[in-house]
């Protein structure tokens, strides 16, 4: 569940408001967006993928509505780690080209699906 929006990093581009499939954020004029409906977050990490300045942190835990909306120093160090993993952002290239799923698939399935 979304846990944190860094007010220091945020450049108020509102991309997260736009891309969040479940409309968790609200746009605020001349201000960073608010996390208005945290309980609607589906933990898909996509806002992080789109945030150009790594200002968002999504906890992998499904239920953290009663935790404070801050990050620990360890979590802070992981800001942007999803974007890095998929190779999005300036100066990076998409890691989709490094995908090795086909190699794994050949180990466990044939043309019609899992070998039994």
């Amino acid at each position, binding site marked *: 569940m979304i846990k944190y929006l860094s007010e220091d990093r945020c450049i108020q581009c509102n991309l997260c408001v736009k891309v969040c*499939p479940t409309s968790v954020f609200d746009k605020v004029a001349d201000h960073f967006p608010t996390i208005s409906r945290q309980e609607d977050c*589906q933990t898909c990490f996509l806002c992080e993928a789109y945030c150009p300045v790594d200002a968002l942190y999504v906890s992998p835990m*499904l239920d953290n509505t009663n935790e404070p909306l801050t990050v620990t120093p360890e979590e802070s160090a992981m800001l942007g780690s999803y974007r890095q*993993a998929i190779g999005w952002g300036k100066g990076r290239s998409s890691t*989709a080209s490094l995908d*090795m799923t086909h190699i794994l698939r050949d180990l466990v399935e044939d*043309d019609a699906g899992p070998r039994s």
Partner: protein
Amino acid sequence: MGSGLKTFESDVLVLGGGPAGTWAAYTAASQGVKVVLADKGYCGSSGATAASGTNLWHVRSEPARREASIRRFLSRGNGLANRRWLEILYDHTKMGTEQLIELGYPFPLDEHGRPISRNLQGPEYMRLMRKTVRKAGVVILDHSPALKLITGERGVSGAAGVNLETGEEWSVHAKAVIIATGGCAFLSRALGCNVLTGDGYLMAAEAGAVLSGMEFSNIYGFSTEFSSCTKNFLYHWATFYREDNSVITNTDKRALAIEMQRAPVYARIDKASDAIQVAMRRSQPNFFLSFDRLGKDPFRERFPITLRLEGTVRGTGGINLVDDTCATNVPGLYAAGDAATREFVAGATTGGGHINASWAICSGRISGSAAADYALGTEAAAMRTQLHFRFTERHSAGKPARSMDMPSIVKSIQEEVIPYDKNLFRTETSMRASLARLNDLWKTIRLNEHDPNDVRALVRSREAASMIATARWMYTSALERKESRGMHQHDDYPAQDNGALYRVLISGVDSIRTQREPQSGGPDRS
């Protein structure tokens, strides 16, 4: 509703902007017709594919391989899969992936520098599809759930919904409508599935569409207990453990579910060599993200797992198709992706694994093309009859009742569909009891009145209604199928009835009707 109404006119309207919807919109627009696409979330990040990634059918050029592959799928489809559709699926998967290469999807390359187009990374794929659709001139309405189809004398002529950001209503008047709103996972928190509440099934059924295969909607996926990461694939390399660290040797999902009903079950991905671990990390970045963030090592430490209901998302039920253009029985209405039945290609087994993702491409392409042709042959004048349709006008007619507590309604629905002892292990008695409670819930939700200025409440109410409707079709169809077949394991009829091969068609929202459609299937059916 407070703030007004936006109307649009187009030739083709696509509801849902996942893979099926974007392929449909792109294909239709490429044929030169005007296309509007409305998505509940954001076209490009919403739906089951965008959040994860999907394997595709491994299609090759050699005819012998094509034939062998189709035969394997026919034999896996429990007699319900159909050769003609599998051939169409194979060929469209091939054409679709070739198009993706042209569009610039960064597939990995083989040793000869040729793209290996067998798997798609969700965020990358759907970002590309959004870009492609926009370039083709499609008008995209984001955060704009459709709530109702507009129908006239000649069938479907558009849809109406709301914009969650502005609070406005919208309506699109179109000559043909494609429903690509995905499946229904009952808000079970499967990855990327919170937007998938079966809205398209309800809209279609209200307009008179028939659904089929709804008994095949009880797929459960492996998930870490704490997260939403429903991924089955990597568990091929897992060992399953009980609390006391004893190994569970029967790893069939039903056997594991029995274990889980008693006590927590754990997994550890401990059968993966170092090289395989590297391949896994490259293939499924978000699976490992969750572990990395918690400081856990899934290759060395065991972690608690659960089975999360994915409903029709990896099941195979949906809106019935009457021909190979993805047309429904309602004129002007088409269905694609998880919104449509996948029995023709996956039968009673799961469509996940790679059929569904290929099907989204195939049915998107086919429906987009057919809807464009239909629109070109249809006069606009006939469509004007219903202009100025407004969602609220239609719906505020009912008598006001109290506004309901949606979270508690959703919980009541989930209590009937999620527990293993109700839906994975099906019996006549328990399904009838669930159905009775769901029928009551249906009557209740029909009376729900929400704050007219609160569009979110309106959407939540429609989602709940869609889930209740889906659950009622699911158990009604399951009761009709008095045998076990594929994912439908009926504990009162544990054997597959090979004498009677049929599909269960279902229709109606207040009163529900089923009909058996005899099939002449079998592996060699042509």
